[in-house]
């Protein structure tokens, strides 16, 4: 048998996916040897043998043993040689002599129960993207998991980042690219950061000043001044992508400024900018105040793109595993609640209040229900204008990294898959989703379609090279 539940002290099992470690499974390895074409994997390639342990405790113990054995032996061949030489029992006891296997098993088996820290501070930016983080408060999801969370409205992305780094906040609402940037040390000192859950997908828009009603084609946008919420934001990458597809160089032909979302409408009104790709409710607010119109929704560029996220530092997870466990569940439960179209009107009423977004209810309601005035005299009905889906696809992280590289925010070689796995904690999210009765995807990688072009996460460098306008 193969996989994480195989007995690591049995020389016949394969801990690595195949004996040489270069293939996804033993079946594929064998096929490669026999020159069979790949992709025709028979069902049940990773078939479970009879010695498959069934009870959770044994399974947990196995996982720990396997992890330790993998770390010690490094390659399949070495493990087998050693085990064949000394035998199973000797190997197990030899390993236990210098590694506290029993303690590790025990620590792993005990699912964390009571949160180590109950009083938490979670920062948010007053935009509809923060809905799950906010909603978990009035809906009592934080309390349900034994947490006493204070959700604190914060003035801007740089501030929320600094406060999170300074540990004034235990967890924070961040733009999806921000945990990647912090981990890589772009724009700040490198600190291992994680993103266990996406908050919202879609829900952004390009808003233009009313005077540009007749200039809807991005080819005519030379010299425009655009605002985005932050340099490390999906907004920045999407507007760059959009104008670059129209043949404009976002660094030379237009201006892009980082402006905190709340200040975007004020700047648009003052004619300081020609438009913005920003979060709601500020697109809708521009329409409400008669300042601008919604040119297009971000879902028209990439349907299902990630926007904001729930982020915690790696240190917080290590120090407070049970608190993290509880917090993530509260967030995911609130995400599921906010995602339900039937709840949207109620959610809008709650989060529009002074204590959270401090916006007119009708503005927030239009964003969340997707029935909205577009600023051009029409009422549009787009139910998935914004949606909430917690699963942090690694492929999303890889796409973000390709754009960071494309626009020169990061340089040199990067291990896309590894960084994505470190920061986007898909395993944790999937586990929490399953516990709540949701169905997470099987694999954290998929292709995405952005403006009709398919992005394949297995070839990020080729993807970057396929663009004519880039900084690499």
């Amino acid at each position, binding site marked *: 048998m193969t996989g994480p539940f195989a007995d690591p002290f049995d020389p016949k099992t394969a801990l690595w996916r195949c004996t040489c470690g270069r293939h996804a499974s033993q079946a594929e390895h064998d096929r490669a040897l026999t020159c069979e074409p790949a992709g025709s994997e028979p069902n049940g390639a990773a078939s479970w043998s009879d010695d498959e342990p069934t009870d959770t405790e044994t399974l947990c113990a196995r996982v720990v043993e396997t992890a330790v054995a993998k770390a010690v032996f490094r390659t399949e061949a070495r493990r087998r040689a050693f085990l064949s030489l000394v035998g199973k029992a000797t190997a197990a006891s030899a390993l236990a002599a210098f590694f506290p296997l029993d303690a590790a098993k025990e620590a792993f088996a005990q699912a964390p129960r009571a949160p180590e820290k109950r009083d938490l501070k979670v920062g948010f930016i007053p935009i509809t993207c923060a809905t799950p983080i906010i909603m978990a408060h009035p809906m009592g999801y934080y309390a349900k998991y034994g947490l006493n969370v204070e959700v604190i409205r914060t003035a801007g992305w740089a*501030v929320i980042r600094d406060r999170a780094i300074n540990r004034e906040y235990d967890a924070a609402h961040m733009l999806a690219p921000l945990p990647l940037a912090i981990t890589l040390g772009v724009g700040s000192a490198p600190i291992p950061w994680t993103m266990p859950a996406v908050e919202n997908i879609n829900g952004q828009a390009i808003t233009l000043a009313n005077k540009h009603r007749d200039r809807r084609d991005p080819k005519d946008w030379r010299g425009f001044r655009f605002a985005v919420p932050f340099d490390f934001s999906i907004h920045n990458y999407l507007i760059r992508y959009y104008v670059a597809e129209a043949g404009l160089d976002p660094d030379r032909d237009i201006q892009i400024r980082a402006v905190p979302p709340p200040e975007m409408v004020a700047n648009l009104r003052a004619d300081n900018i020609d438009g913005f790709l920003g979060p709601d409710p500020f697109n809708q607010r521009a329409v409400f*105040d008669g300042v601008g119109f919604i040119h297009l929704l971000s879902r028209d560029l990439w349907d299902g793109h990630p926007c904001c996220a729930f982020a915690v530092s790696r240190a917080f997870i290590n120090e407070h595993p049970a608190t993290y466990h509880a917090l993530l569940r509260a967030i995911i439960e609130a995400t599921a609640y906010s995602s339900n179209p039937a709840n949207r009107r109620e959610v809008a009423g709650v989060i529009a209040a002074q204590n959270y977004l401090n916006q007119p209810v009708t503005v927030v309601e239009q964003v969340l229900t997707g029935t909205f005035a577009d600023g051009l005299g029409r009422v549009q009905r787009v139910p998935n204008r914004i949606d909430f889906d917690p699963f942090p696809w690694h492929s999303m992280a890889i796409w973000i990294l390709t754009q960071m590289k494309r626009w020169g925010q990061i340089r040199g070689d990067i291990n896309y898959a590894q960084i994505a796995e470190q920061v986007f904690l898909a395993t944790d999210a999937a586990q929490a989703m399953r516990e709540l009765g949701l169905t997470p995807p099987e694999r954290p990688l998929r292709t995405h379609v952005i403006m009709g072009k398919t992005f394949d996460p297995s070839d990020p460098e080729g993807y970057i090279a396929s663009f004519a306008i880039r900084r690499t």
Partner: protein
Amino acid sequence: MLVSRPFASLALAALLFALFVGVWQLSSATSPAGEVIVDPEYAALVGAAAATGGKTPFPSPIEVGARILEHFADPFYVRGTNDQGIGIQLAYSLGRVLAGYGFAALVAIPLGFVIGMSPLLYGALNPFIQVLRPISPLAWMPLALYTIKDSSVSSIFVIFICSLWPMLINTAFGVASVRREWLNVARTLECSTLRTAFRVILPAAAPTIMTGMRISIGIAWLVIVAAEMLVGGTGIGYFVWNQWNNLSLSDIVTAILVIGLVGMMLDQLLATATRVVSYQE
């Protein structure tokens, strides 16, 4: 002159104010012209002005007045972390200003005294003071956040650093320019250095020191609003930011009024203190 005809100036001030409000009311009353959108569903989704093709106008004095009354009817409410009354926000700001300012006074006045009494130190420290003094206190904010790792203490630090220089320079100047004769008299009477400092130099330099303190409190009050807008959380500056976020100009006007009144009170307080210590030569 001002003292001789107080009623006339008061009447003129009231007239000017009435004129200002009148012009404001008139200019905000003009209805925006434009195409009228008839679709009632659309009109229900946008603001009143946008429904008729205009932009939301600046609020009229009546709207602002109503908002001010609303704020002052219940200034100390707390309805959650992010929703607190204007009185509470003012208290936060005043607390930060007093902490930063008080700490700056504790450092600046003794240090200024020493610098003023020792020409050697004056010469040595003067270049540093001259370079550090013109730096906008807000420029310190990212540095403070990075090193202090606490946003509330950072804003206090920013207040500290901006109130430090006027007090330090004025104290040093006041101490250094105490009249030679007085110091000579003290020396003739064989006063100890400490006694000279407290009985001769301090009273002589007090008016200059107080002027420095008055300048400092003005700057500190200016800076706290900006600092709180930047860092957020609590305070009157945060209140302004939060209402800007909601594009609620009536609330911003309320805040501006309150900031002005409190600033004036702080200034008057120190002006009174200056009058107490001033002397006629």
